[in-house]
């Protein structure tokens, strides 16, 4: 099976910022992303859990597969959204099927 190199970018961000982040991704030319729910976590701003919350509380994890050459532009776009906010951004080398999609 033919695979193609890509980058997998994973952004854990506060849920109220989700739309702003995905708008920024789209503006940066990303062709797709996937949003995963997060149950809870811990970091410099303490521990939290989604249980029983009512508002748009908590965090989400946004995963984005992109062509390697797009990475730099993308990270700039992401950083503009997350810089003042809690959350983490990580990048992993990956291979994808069907490169024409990215």
């Amino acid at each position, binding site marked *: 099976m033919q695979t193609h190199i890509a980058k997998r970018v994973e952004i854990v961000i506060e849920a109220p910022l989700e739309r*702003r982040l995905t708008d920024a991704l789209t503006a940066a030319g990303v062709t797709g992303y996937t949003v995963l729910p997060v149950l809870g976590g811990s970091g410099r*701003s303490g521990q939290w859990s*989604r249980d029983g*919350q*009512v*508002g748009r509380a908590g965090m989400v994890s946004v995963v984005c597969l992109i062509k390697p050459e797009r990475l730099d532009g993308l990270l700039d776009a992401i950083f503009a959204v997350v810089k*003042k906010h809690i959350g983490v951004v990580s990048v992993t080398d990956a291979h994808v099927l069907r490169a024409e999609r990215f």
Partner: protein
Amino acid sequence: MTEILSLAGANLISPIILSFALGLLAALARSDLTIPEAVAKGMSIYLLFSIGFKGGVAVSAHGIDQTLVLALIAGLVLSFVLPLLAFGLLRVMTGLSAIDAAAVAAHYGSISIVTFVAATSVLNGRMISSEGYMVAVAAVMEAPAILSALWLVARSGSGEARMDPGLIRELLLNGSIVLLVGAFFIGAITGEKGFAEISAFIEAPFKGVLCLFLLDMGLIAGRGLRQSRGVLGMGAVGFAIAMPLVSAMIGLGIGALIGLSLGGVVLMMVLCASASYIAVPAAMRVALPEANPAVYLTLSLGVTFPFNLTLGIPLYLAIAQAVTGA
């Protein structure tokens, strides 16, 4: 005075308050009792829909009071102005930074719909009627305080508030405002006939659902208190008790001035005295990310909410009765 205490006592042993206490104790004792997020959201949707609908039905039954417009304007103005008062008090009573103080102030200018619902329950239990459109006043008071807070930050020059164009739309079209106002209109349009159709859903089980919802609020408040131990000084806690008292008095004056009924005055006091912990925190994460959530959530949900629920509501009712002579 003894009457106030006996009123408060009667209030304290209702299933609603005890459910909140159960949640609080369970969380402080580190029980793993939790209510799933989806269930908590479902209950809040139910409560907003019911309270909005019933308000609309009341308006359709009693007609539009001449004070309706006055009450809406009063709510709007109060929500803009109360944060300024809160900010002033915070700067005097606590050592909070301007940004943290502004974030807290936004919460106290806005309202807590569950406190409002609990007050309605108490009024119903005492057979005191109130203006149905007070839920519309509640809706109107949700968002303006946020703008005041951002203005306070901008003025203090201590950080840039993030005021992107999307934010205002988000505030106005916030899910809970839309649901509350929408249900209000549905109730107003369908009236008693609509109410008869669905009262077995929105009226009969209401108090029971409120119990479980307050159990959840207790769990969240308890977990918040446990985690933020040490974050708050006595000054901040004092503010979280003083501010609702002062705001309630302002609400009392305004409510009496515009001619609300006894029930309406009490609800206006409760709206002024209560602090948001759902809509405003989310907005703060977007607009004032540097503000510390532990501070504003603990004050609003951990101190002011239980204070209003247990002592505040009966106290406001007693004062309003004394003042209006009803």
